[in-house]
Protein backbone atom coordinates (compact mmCIF):
# COMPACT_ATOMS: atom_id res chain seq x y z
CA UNK A 1 0.00 0.00 0.00
CA UNK A 2 1.31 3.43 -0.87
CA UNK A 3 1.32 6.32 1.50
CA UNK A 4 -1.70 7.80 -0.17
CA UNK A 5 -3.69 4.67 0.61
CA UNK A 6 -3.83 3.43 -2.98
CA UNK A 7 -3.67 -0.26 -3.57
CA UNK A 8 -1.25 -1.16 -6.35
CA UNK A 9 0.45 -4.04 -8.09
CA UNK A 10 1.16 -7.03 -5.97
CA UNK A 11 -1.03 -5.92 -3.07
CA UNK A 12 -3.95 -5.92 -5.43
CA UNK A 13 -3.49 -9.55 -6.40
CA UNK A 14 -2.94 -10.52 -2.75
CA UNK A 15 -6.28 -9.02 -1.80
CA UNK A 16 -8.19 -11.11 -4.39
CA UNK A 17 -9.92 -8.03 -5.68
CA UNK A 18 -12.72 -8.92 -8.00
CA UNK A 19 -16.08 -7.53 -8.97
CA UNK A 20 -18.75 -8.44 -6.49
CA UNK A 21 -22.42 -8.76 -7.39
CA UNK A 22 -24.71 -7.73 -4.58
CA UNK A 23 -28.47 -7.87 -4.55
CA UNK A 24 -30.34 -4.95 -3.00
CA UNK A 25 -34.05 -5.33 -2.44
CA UNK A 26 -36.75 -5.84 -3.52
CA UNK A 27 -38.76 -4.03 -0.94
CA UNK A 28 -42.03 -5.42 0.31
CA UNK A 29 -44.59 -5.38 -2.52
CA UNK A 30 -46.84 -2.86 -0.78
CA UNK A 31 -44.23 -0.16 -0.46
CA UNK A 32 -44.16 2.73 -2.87
CA UNK A 33 -42.49 1.52 -6.02
CA UNK A 34 -40.88 -1.89 -5.71
CA UNK A 35 -37.41 -1.94 -7.14
CA UNK A 36 -34.52 -4.36 -6.95
CA UNK A 37 -31.04 -3.15 -7.66
CA UNK A 38 -28.26 -5.49 -8.65
CA UNK A 39 -25.08 -3.74 -7.61
CA UNK A 40 -21.73 -4.41 -9.20
CA UNK A 41 -19.11 -3.45 -6.66
CA UNK A 42 -15.36 -3.11 -6.60
CA UNK A 43 -14.71 -3.04 -2.89
CA UNK A 44 -16.91 -0.22 -1.73
CA UNK A 45 -16.99 1.51 -5.09
CA UNK A 46 -20.08 1.12 -7.17
CA UNK A 47 -19.20 0.19 -10.75
CA UNK A 48 -22.65 -0.23 -12.18
CA UNK A 49 -26.24 -0.77 -11.18
CA UNK A 50 -28.73 -2.99 -12.91
CA UNK A 51 -32.28 -2.07 -11.93
CA UNK A 52 -34.78 -4.93 -11.93
CA UNK A 53 -38.38 -3.83 -12.05
CA UNK A 54 -41.77 -5.25 -12.82
CA UNK A 55 -42.74 -6.45 -9.36
CA UNK A 56 -45.84 -4.32 -9.44
CA UNK A 57 -46.89 -4.84 -13.03
CA UNK A 58 -50.54 -5.79 -12.79
CA UNK A 59 -51.39 -6.35 -16.43
CA UNK A 60 -54.09 -3.71 -16.71
CA UNK A 61 -53.77 -3.63 -20.47
CA UNK A 62 -54.49 -7.32 -20.76
CA UNK A 63 -57.42 -7.08 -18.33
CA UNK A 64 -58.88 -4.29 -20.44
CA UNK A 65 -59.02 -6.51 -23.49
CA UNK A 66 -61.98 -8.49 -22.18
CA UNK A 67 -63.96 -5.59 -20.77
CA UNK A 68 -66.18 -2.88 -22.20
CA UNK A 69 -65.23 0.77 -21.80
CA UNK A 70 -67.74 1.15 -18.97
CA UNK A 71 -66.65 -1.98 -17.16
CA UNK A 72 -63.03 -0.93 -17.25
CA UNK A 73 -63.83 2.39 -15.59
CA UNK A 74 -63.90 0.84 -12.13
CA UNK A 75 -60.31 -0.38 -12.44
CA UNK A 76 -58.83 2.89 -13.59
CA UNK A 77 -58.37 4.61 -10.23
CA UNK A 78 -56.16 1.69 -9.20
CA UNK A 79 -53.52 2.59 -11.77
CA UNK A 80 -52.07 5.23 -9.49
CA UNK A 81 -53.86 4.95 -6.20
CA UNK A 82 -52.49 8.29 -4.99
CA UNK A 83 -53.98 10.31 -7.81
CA UNK A 84 -56.83 8.18 -9.01
CA UNK A 85 -58.79 11.15 -10.32
CA UNK A 86 -56.15 11.83 -12.94
CA UNK A 87 -56.02 8.23 -14.07
CA UNK A 88 -59.81 8.26 -14.46
CA UNK A 89 -59.69 11.63 -16.12
CA UNK A 90 -57.18 10.62 -18.75
CA UNK A 91 -59.14 7.46 -19.48
CA UNK A 92 -62.55 9.08 -19.83
CA UNK A 93 -60.96 11.85 -21.89
CA UNK A 94 -59.58 9.29 -24.29
CA UNK A 95 -62.94 7.57 -24.63
CA UNK A 96 -64.63 10.95 -25.06
CA UNK A 97 -62.16 11.87 -27.79
CA UNK A 98 -62.80 8.56 -29.55
CA UNK A 99 -66.57 8.92 -29.31
CA UNK A 100 -66.61 12.67 -29.89
CA UNK A 101 -68.52 13.43 -26.71
CA UNK A 102 -68.72 16.93 -25.33
CA UNK A 103 -68.67 17.27 -21.56
CA UNK A 104 -71.01 19.77 -19.85
CA UNK A 105 -69.23 22.83 -18.49
CA UNK A 106 -70.32 22.13 -14.93
CA UNK A 107 -68.88 18.62 -15.04
CA UNK A 108 -65.66 20.12 -16.39
CA UNK A 109 -65.43 22.49 -13.43
CA UNK A 110 -66.08 19.68 -10.99
CA UNK A 111 -63.36 17.65 -12.65
CA UNK A 112 -60.85 20.47 -12.32
CA UNK A 113 -61.68 21.16 -8.66
CA UNK A 114 -61.55 17.51 -7.63
CA UNK A 115 -58.49 16.90 -9.76
CA UNK A 116 -56.50 19.74 -8.24
CA UNK A 117 -57.44 18.68 -4.72
CA UNK A 118 -56.27 15.19 -5.59
CA UNK A 119 -53.04 16.57 -6.97
CA UNK A 120 -52.36 18.49 -3.78
CA UNK A 121 -52.70 15.39 -1.59
CA UNK A 122 -50.66 13.35 -4.02
CA UNK A 123 -47.85 15.90 -3.59
CA UNK A 124 -48.35 15.67 0.16
CA UNK A 125 -47.59 11.97 0.07
CA UNK A 126 -44.59 12.61 -2.16
CA UNK A 127 -43.11 15.11 0.31
CA UNK A 128 -43.87 12.92 3.32
CA UNK A 129 -42.49 9.73 1.83
CA UNK A 130 -39.42 11.45 0.50
CA UNK A 131 -38.62 12.74 3.96
CA UNK A 132 -39.44 9.36 5.49
CA UNK A 133 -36.95 7.73 3.16
CA UNK A 134 -34.37 10.23 4.34
CA UNK A 135 -35.10 9.23 7.93
CA UNK A 136 -37.29 12.15 9.01
CA UNK A 137 -40.57 10.92 10.44
CA UNK A 138 -42.20 14.16 11.61
CA UNK A 139 -42.96 15.66 8.16
CA UNK A 140 -44.71 12.44 7.27
CA UNK A 141 -47.21 12.90 10.09
CA UNK A 142 -47.67 16.56 9.29
CA UNK A 143 -48.52 16.01 5.65
CA UNK A 144 -50.78 13.10 6.42
CA UNK A 145 -52.64 15.18 8.99
CA UNK A 146 -53.29 17.87 6.37
CA UNK A 147 -54.00 15.31 3.70
CA UNK A 148 -56.84 14.06 5.85
CA UNK A 149 -58.78 17.33 5.36
CA UNK A 150 -58.73 16.86 1.61
CA UNK A 151 -59.49 13.16 1.90
CA UNK A 152 -62.62 14.08 3.87
CA UNK A 153 -63.65 16.46 1.13
CA UNK A 154 -63.04 13.90 -1.58
CA UNK A 155 -64.96 11.33 0.42
CA UNK A 156 -67.82 13.80 0.72
CA UNK A 157 -67.86 14.23 -3.06
CA UNK A 158 -67.10 10.75 -4.35
CA UNK A 159 -67.95 8.45 -1.44
CA UNK A 160 -64.43 7.03 -1.48
CA UNK A 161 -61.14 7.99 0.07
CA UNK A 162 -58.80 6.68 -2.61
CA UNK A 163 -60.43 4.57 -5.33
CA UNK A 164 -62.83 7.27 -6.38
CA UNK A 165 -64.49 5.88 -9.50
CA UNK A 166 -65.98 9.33 -9.87
CA UNK A 167 -65.45 10.20 -13.51
CA UNK A 168 -67.95 9.05 -16.07
CA UNK A 169 -67.64 8.99 -19.80
CA UNK A 170 -69.25 12.34 -20.65
CA UNK A 171 -69.24 13.81 -17.16
CA UNK A 172 -68.99 12.95 -13.51
CA UNK A 173 -70.92 10.61 -11.28
CA UNK A 174 -72.88 13.22 -9.38
CA UNK A 175 -72.92 16.87 -8.43
CA UNK A 176 -70.93 18.39 -5.58
CA UNK A 177 -72.75 18.22 -2.25
CA UNK A 178 -73.90 21.47 -0.67
CA UNK A 179 -71.42 21.35 2.20
CA UNK A 180 -68.45 21.00 -0.13
CA UNK A 181 -67.94 24.63 -1.03
CA UNK A 182 -67.60 25.88 2.55
CA UNK A 183 -65.13 23.10 3.38
CA UNK A 184 -63.10 23.73 0.26
CA UNK A 185 -62.88 27.46 0.86
CA UNK A 186 -61.84 26.84 4.45
CA UNK A 187 -59.11 24.48 3.28
CA UNK A 188 -57.84 26.94 0.69
CA UNK A 189 -57.66 29.64 3.32
CA UNK A 190 -55.81 27.53 5.86
CA UNK A 191 -53.52 25.56 3.60
CA UNK A 192 -50.90 28.23 2.73
CA UNK A 193 -49.94 28.56 6.40
CA UNK A 194 -49.34 24.81 6.52
CA UNK A 195 -47.13 24.97 3.46
CA UNK A 196 -45.12 27.61 5.29
CA UNK A 197 -44.80 25.16 8.16
CA UNK A 198 -43.41 22.51 5.81
CA UNK A 199 -40.94 25.04 4.49
CA UNK A 200 -39.74 25.79 7.98
CA UNK A 201 -39.52 22.13 8.86
CA UNK A 202 -37.95 20.79 5.70
CA UNK A 203 -36.46 23.27 3.27
CA UNK A 204 -33.94 24.90 5.55
CA UNK A 205 -33.30 21.78 7.57
CA UNK A 206 -29.57 21.16 7.73
CA UNK A 207 -29.85 17.37 7.69
CA UNK A 208 -32.11 17.50 4.68
CA UNK A 209 -29.75 19.80 2.84
CA UNK A 210 -26.75 17.66 3.70
CA UNK A 211 -28.44 14.60 2.26
CA UNK A 212 -29.81 16.13 -0.93
CA UNK A 213 -27.62 19.04 -2.08
CA UNK A 214 -25.33 18.00 -4.90
CA UNK A 215 -26.60 14.42 -4.93
CA UNK A 216 -27.48 12.66 -8.17
CA UNK A 217 -27.05 15.68 -10.41
CA UNK A 218 -28.96 15.59 -13.67
CA UNK A 219 -27.74 17.83 -16.44
CA UNK A 220 -30.40 19.72 -18.40
CA UNK A 221 -29.65 17.93 -21.66
CA UNK A 222 -29.79 14.51 -19.96
CA UNK A 223 -33.12 15.34 -18.39
CA UNK A 224 -34.59 15.94 -21.82
CA UNK A 225 -32.77 13.04 -23.44
CA UNK A 226 -34.03 10.55 -20.88
CA UNK A 227 -37.55 11.87 -21.17
CA UNK A 228 -37.89 13.25 -17.67
CA UNK A 229 -40.85 15.54 -17.26
CA UNK A 230 -42.58 17.77 -14.73
CA UNK A 231 -41.03 17.81 -11.25
CA UNK A 232 -38.23 15.52 -12.41
CA UNK A 233 -37.20 17.84 -15.21
CA UNK A 234 -37.61 21.12 -13.37
CA UNK A 235 -34.71 20.89 -10.90
CA UNK A 236 -32.08 20.69 -13.69
CA UNK A 237 -33.34 24.10 -14.69
CA UNK A 238 -33.24 24.20 -18.44
CA UNK A 239 -35.82 21.52 -19.07
CA UNK A 240 -38.95 22.65 -17.26
CA UNK A 241 -42.44 21.93 -18.44
CA UNK A 242 -43.23 21.24 -22.04
CA UNK A 243 -45.70 23.65 -23.57
CA UNK A 244 -49.24 22.31 -23.40
CA UNK A 245 -50.30 20.65 -26.64
CA UNK A 246 -52.40 23.02 -28.69
CA UNK A 247 -55.98 21.93 -29.03
CA UNK A 248 -55.65 19.05 -26.59
CA UNK A 249 -59.12 18.53 -25.12
CA UNK A 250 -57.53 16.91 -22.09
CA UNK A 251 -56.63 20.41 -20.94
CA UNK A 252 -59.96 22.06 -20.29
CA UNK A 253 -59.90 25.77 -20.87
CA UNK A 254 -61.79 26.58 -17.69
CA UNK A 255 -58.94 27.96 -15.63
CA UNK A 256 -55.95 29.94 -16.80
CA UNK A 257 -52.60 28.42 -15.92
CA UNK A 258 -50.00 30.60 -14.34
CA UNK A 259 -47.44 31.90 -16.79
CA UNK A 260 -44.31 29.74 -16.92
CA UNK A 261 -41.69 30.94 -14.48
CA UNK A 262 -44.17 32.75 -12.30
CA UNK A 263 -43.84 30.21 -9.54
CA UNK A 264 -40.16 29.68 -8.79
CA UNK A 265 -39.06 26.05 -8.94
CA UNK A 266 -38.63 24.61 -5.52
CA UNK A 267 -36.45 21.66 -4.56
CA UNK A 268 -38.83 19.92 -2.19
CA UNK A 269 -42.21 21.37 -2.01
CA UNK A 270 -44.72 20.58 -4.68
CA UNK A 271 -43.71 23.27 -7.15
CA UNK A 272 -47.20 23.82 -8.40
CA UNK A 273 -49.03 23.98 -5.07
CA UNK A 274 -49.62 27.74 -4.99
CA UNK A 275 -50.69 27.59 -8.62
CA UNK A 276 -53.05 24.72 -7.92
CA UNK A 277 -54.64 26.57 -5.05
CA UNK A 278 -55.11 29.60 -7.25
CA UNK A 279 -56.65 27.43 -9.92
CA UNK A 280 -59.13 25.96 -7.46
CA UNK A 281 -59.96 29.45 -6.19
CA UNK A 282 -60.55 30.56 -9.72
CA UNK A 283 -62.75 27.61 -10.57
CA UNK A 284 -64.71 28.05 -7.37
CA UNK A 285 -65.33 31.67 -8.35
CA UNK A 286 -66.57 30.57 -11.74
CA UNK A 287 -68.64 27.87 -10.11
CA UNK A 288 -70.10 30.49 -7.78
CA UNK A 289 -71.17 32.64 -10.70
CA UNK A 290 -72.44 29.55 -12.45
CA UNK A 291 -74.43 28.54 -9.40
CA UNK A 292 -75.98 32.01 -9.14
CA UNK A 293 -76.88 31.90 -12.79
CA UNK A 294 -78.34 28.48 -12.30
CA UNK A 295 -80.31 29.80 -9.32
CA UNK A 296 -81.59 32.66 -11.41
CA UNK A 297 -82.53 30.25 -14.11
CA UNK A 298 -84.18 28.05 -11.53
CA UNK A 299 -86.29 30.89 -10.15
CA UNK A 300 -87.12 31.95 -13.67
CA UNK A 301 -88.14 28.43 -14.54
CA UNK A 302 -90.11 28.16 -11.31
CA UNK A 303 -91.90 31.39 -12.12
CA UNK A 304 -92.76 30.13 -15.59
CA UNK A 305 -93.95 26.86 -14.15
CA UNK A 306 -96.00 28.67 -11.53
CA UNK A 307 -97.56 30.88 -14.20
CA UNK A 308 -98.35 27.87 -16.29
CA UNK A 309 -99.89 26.10 -13.31
CA UNK A 310 -102.03 29.13 -12.55
CA UNK A 311 -103.12 29.29 -16.17
CA UNK A 312 -103.97 25.62 -16.09
CA UNK A 313 -105.95 26.04 -12.91
CA UNK A 314 -107.82 28.96 -14.42
CA UNK A 315 -108.48 27.00 -17.59
CA UNK A 316 -109.73 24.08 -15.56
CA UNK A 317 -111.96 26.35 -13.50
CA UNK A 318 -113.26 27.96 -16.64
CA UNK A 319 -113.83 24.52 -18.09
CA UNK A 320 -115.61 23.41 -14.97
CA UNK A 321 -117.69 26.55 -15.02
CA UNK A 322 -118.50 25.84 -18.61
CA UNK A 323 -119.43 22.26 -17.81
CA UNK A 324 -121.54 23.35 -14.91
CA UNK A 325 -123.42 25.81 -17.07
CA UNK A 326 -123.83 23.10 -19.71
CA UNK A 327 -125.23 20.71 -17.10
CA UNK A 328 -127.51 23.36 -15.70
CA UNK A 329 -128.75 24.05 -19.19
CA UNK A 330 -129.30 20.38 -19.86
CA UNK A 331 -131.22 20.03 -16.61
CA UNK A 332 -133.27 23.01 -17.52
CA UNK A 333 -134.04 21.55 -20.92
CA UNK A 334 -134.96 18.19 -19.31
CA UNK A 335 -137.22 19.89 -16.82
CA UNK A 336 -138.92 21.82 -19.57
Amino acid at each position, binding site marked *: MTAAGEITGQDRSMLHLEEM*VLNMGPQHPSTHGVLRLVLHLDGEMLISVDPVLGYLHRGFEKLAENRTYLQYLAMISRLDYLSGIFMEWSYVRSVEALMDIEVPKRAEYIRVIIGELNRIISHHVAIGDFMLNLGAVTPFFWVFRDREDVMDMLEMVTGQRMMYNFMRIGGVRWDLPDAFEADCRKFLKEHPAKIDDYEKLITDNEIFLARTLGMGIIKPYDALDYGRSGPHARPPGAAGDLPPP*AGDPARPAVAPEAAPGEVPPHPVQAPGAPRRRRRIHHVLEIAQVGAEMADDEQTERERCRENRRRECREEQRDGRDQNETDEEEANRVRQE
Partner: protein
Amino acid sequence: MTAEDLKLTAPEVLEYARDLLGKLARDLAISDWHVVIEVGAEDLPEVALRLRDDNKLSCKYLSTIIGVDYEEWMETLYMLRSQDHSVPVRLRVKLDRERPEVPSVAYIWSGANWHEREAFDFFGIQFQGHPDLRHILTREDMDSFPLRKDARPHRKRRRSGQVTGIEEPVRLPGEPDSRERS
Protein backbone atom coordinates in the same frame (compact mmCIF):
# COMPACT_ATOMS: atom_id res chain seq x y z
CA MET B 1 -37.96 30.10 -27.65
CA THR B 2 -40.24 32.91 -28.71
CA ALA B 3 -43.96 33.29 -28.53
CA GLU B 4 -44.06 32.97 -32.33
CA ASP B 5 -42.63 29.45 -32.22
CA LEU B 6 -45.12 28.38 -29.60
CA LYS B 7 -47.90 29.42 -31.93
CA LEU B 8 -46.82 26.87 -34.53
CA THR B 9 -50.00 25.07 -35.53
CA ALA B 10 -50.43 21.43 -36.47
CA PRO B 11 -50.98 22.14 -40.22
CA GLU B 12 -47.80 24.26 -40.28
CA VAL B 13 -45.82 21.49 -38.60
CA LEU B 14 -47.25 19.01 -41.06
CA GLU B 15 -46.20 21.08 -44.07
CA TYR B 16 -42.79 21.73 -42.60
CA ALA B 17 -42.27 18.04 -41.86
CA ARG B 18 -43.33 17.18 -45.39
CA ASP B 19 -40.57 19.40 -46.77
CA LEU B 20 -38.05 18.24 -44.22
CA LEU B 21 -38.58 14.51 -44.68
CA GLY B 22 -39.40 14.36 -48.38
CA LYS B 23 -39.80 10.80 -49.55
CA LEU B 24 -38.92 9.37 -46.14
CA ALA B 25 -42.42 10.11 -44.93
CA ARG B 26 -44.86 7.65 -46.43
CA ASP B 27 -47.89 9.44 -45.12
CA LEU B 28 -48.62 12.55 -43.08
CA ALA B 29 -51.87 13.32 -41.33
CA ILE B 30 -53.36 15.24 -38.45
CA SER B 31 -55.20 13.12 -35.96
CA ASP B 32 -56.48 14.43 -32.63
CA TRP B 33 -54.24 17.52 -32.59
CA HIS B 34 -51.16 15.30 -33.26
CA VAL B 35 -49.16 15.29 -36.44
CA VAL B 36 -48.89 11.64 -37.41
CA ILE B 37 -46.06 10.63 -39.72
CA GLU B 38 -45.89 7.13 -41.09
CA VAL B 39 -42.39 5.94 -41.95
CA GLY B 40 -40.89 2.70 -43.11
CA ALA B 41 -38.92 0.70 -40.56
CA GLU B 42 -35.67 1.14 -42.50
CA ASP B 43 -36.05 4.94 -42.60
CA LEU B 44 -36.82 5.34 -38.92
CA PRO B 45 -33.35 6.32 -37.62
CA GLU B 46 -32.89 8.90 -40.38
CA VAL B 47 -36.33 10.42 -39.74
CA ALA B 48 -35.78 10.42 -35.98
CA LEU B 49 -32.44 12.20 -36.34
CA ARG B 50 -33.87 14.82 -38.67
CA LEU B 51 -36.82 15.53 -36.39
CA ARG B 52 -34.61 15.74 -33.33
CA ASP B 53 -31.91 17.94 -34.79
CA ASP B 54 -34.06 20.29 -36.81
CA ASN B 55 -34.02 23.78 -35.35
CA LYS B 56 -37.68 24.44 -35.84
CA LEU B 57 -39.25 21.10 -34.92
CA SER B 58 -36.55 20.05 -32.39
CA CYS B 59 -38.36 16.96 -31.14
CA LYS B 60 -35.85 16.35 -28.39
CA TYR B 61 -38.31 14.77 -26.00
CA LEU B 62 -39.52 11.22 -26.55
CA SER B 63 -42.37 10.68 -24.14
CA THR B 64 -43.01 7.04 -24.90
CA ILE B 65 -42.85 4.18 -27.38
CA ILE B 66 -45.95 2.07 -27.75
CA GLY B 67 -46.33 -1.30 -29.39
CA VAL B 68 -49.68 -2.14 -30.95
CA ASP B 69 -50.90 -5.47 -32.21
CA TYR B 70 -53.51 -5.08 -34.97
CA GLU B 71 -53.66 -8.86 -35.47
CA GLU B 72 -52.81 -8.46 -39.16
CA TRP B 73 -49.77 -6.30 -38.61
CA MET B 74 -47.93 -4.68 -35.72
CA GLU B 75 -46.99 -1.10 -35.13
CA THR B 76 -44.64 0.91 -33.02
CA LEU B 77 -45.64 4.44 -32.14
CA TYR B 78 -43.13 7.07 -31.07
CA MET B 79 -44.61 10.01 -29.19
CA LEU B 80 -42.46 13.09 -29.65
CA ARG B 81 -42.72 16.48 -28.04
CA SER B 82 -40.73 19.63 -28.28
CA GLN B 83 -39.92 22.37 -25.84
CA ASP B 84 -40.17 24.94 -28.58
CA HIS B 85 -43.66 24.43 -29.90
CA SER B 86 -46.83 22.85 -28.73
CA VAL B 87 -47.61 20.36 -31.48
CA PRO B 88 -47.03 16.70 -30.56
CA VAL B 89 -45.56 14.57 -33.33
CA ARG B 90 -46.29 10.87 -33.55
CA LEU B 91 -44.17 8.52 -35.65
CA ARG B 92 -45.86 5.39 -36.84
CA VAL B 93 -43.98 2.35 -38.11
CA LYS B 94 -45.85 -0.61 -39.53
CA LEU B 95 -44.23 -3.99 -38.97
CA ASP B 96 -44.66 -7.46 -40.30
CA ARG B 97 -46.44 -9.48 -37.62
CA GLU B 98 -44.49 -12.64 -38.32
CA ARG B 99 -41.12 -10.90 -38.05
CA PRO B 100 -41.56 -7.63 -36.18
CA GLU B 101 -38.21 -5.91 -36.51
CA VAL B 102 -37.39 -2.24 -36.31
CA PRO B 103 -34.12 -0.33 -35.81
CA SER B 104 -33.56 0.85 -32.27
CA VAL B 105 -33.63 4.58 -31.52
CA ALA B 106 -32.00 4.14 -28.12
CA TYR B 107 -28.91 5.99 -29.31
CA ILE B 108 -31.00 8.91 -30.54
CA TRP B 109 -33.06 9.36 -27.40
CA SER B 110 -31.60 7.67 -24.33
CA GLY B 111 -35.05 7.39 -22.82
CA ALA B 112 -36.01 4.99 -25.61
CA ASN B 113 -33.93 2.24 -24.06
CA TRP B 114 -36.46 1.04 -21.51
CA HIS B 115 -39.48 1.82 -23.67
CA GLU B 116 -38.09 -0.47 -26.34
CA ARG B 117 -37.38 -3.16 -23.79
CA GLU B 118 -41.01 -2.92 -22.70
CA ALA B 119 -42.33 -3.21 -26.25
CA PHE B 120 -40.05 -6.20 -26.78
CA ASP B 121 -41.26 -7.69 -23.53
CA PHE B 122 -44.94 -7.47 -24.32
CA PHE B 123 -45.12 -7.71 -28.10
CA GLY B 124 -41.92 -9.47 -29.07
CA ILE B 125 -40.84 -6.60 -31.29
CA GLN B 126 -37.12 -6.93 -32.03
CA PHE B 127 -35.30 -3.61 -31.82
CA GLN B 128 -32.18 -4.05 -33.90
CA GLY B 129 -29.09 -2.43 -32.48
CA HIS B 130 -30.56 -2.04 -29.02
CA PRO B 131 -27.77 -2.00 -26.43
CA ASP B 132 -29.47 -4.31 -23.95
CA LEU B 133 -32.67 -5.94 -25.17
CA ARG B 134 -33.73 -8.02 -22.15
CA HIS B 135 -37.08 -8.56 -20.44
CA ILE B 136 -37.90 -5.59 -18.29
CA LEU B 137 -41.24 -6.17 -16.62
CA THR B 138 -42.02 -9.83 -17.12
CA ARG B 139 -40.11 -12.78 -15.75
CA GLU B 140 -36.77 -13.65 -17.24
CA ASP B 141 -37.99 -17.03 -18.43
CA MET B 142 -41.24 -15.73 -19.92
CA ASP B 143 -41.60 -17.52 -23.23
CA SER B 144 -44.64 -15.72 -24.66
CA PHE B 145 -45.48 -12.11 -25.40
CA PRO B 146 -48.45 -11.35 -23.19
CA LEU B 147 -49.94 -8.28 -24.87
CA ARG B 148 -50.25 -9.87 -28.29
CA LYS B 149 -53.90 -10.33 -29.02
CA ASP B 150 -53.58 -14.08 -29.34
CA ALA B 151 -51.68 -14.50 -26.06
CA ARG B 152 -53.63 -16.44 -23.49
CA PRO B 153 -53.33 -15.96 -19.74
CA HIS B 154 -50.58 -18.05 -18.23
CA ARG B 155 -53.02 -19.84 -15.90
CA LYS B 156 -55.03 -21.25 -18.77
CA ARG B 157 -51.94 -22.41 -20.60
CA ARG B 158 -50.73 -24.12 -17.47
CA ARG B 159 -54.07 -25.91 -17.04
CA SER B 160 -53.93 -27.19 -20.58
CA GLY B 161 -50.45 -28.54 -19.98
CA GLN B 162 -48.64 -26.15 -22.30
CA VAL B 163 -46.63 -24.72 -19.43
CA THR B 164 -45.43 -26.76 -16.51
CA GLY B 165 -43.95 -24.01 -14.38
CA ILE B 166 -40.55 -22.50 -13.87
CA GLU B 167 -38.01 -24.94 -15.19
CA GLU B 168 -34.80 -22.94 -15.24
CA PRO B 169 -33.41 -21.53 -11.99
CA VAL B 170 -33.71 -17.74 -11.95
CA ARG B 171 -30.38 -16.06 -12.28
CA LEU B 172 -29.36 -12.53 -11.31
CA PRO B 173 -28.48 -10.36 -14.28
CA GLY B 174 -24.72 -10.30 -14.51
CA GLU B 175 -24.37 -13.38 -12.36
CA PRO B 176 -22.43 -16.14 -14.10
CA ASP B 177 -24.34 -19.22 -15.15
CA SER B 178 -24.21 -21.95 -12.49
CA ARG B 179 -23.00 -24.40 -15.11
CA GLU B 180 -20.11 -22.12 -16.02
CA ARG B 181 -19.25 -21.60 -12.38
CA SER B 182 -18.79 -25.32 -11.65
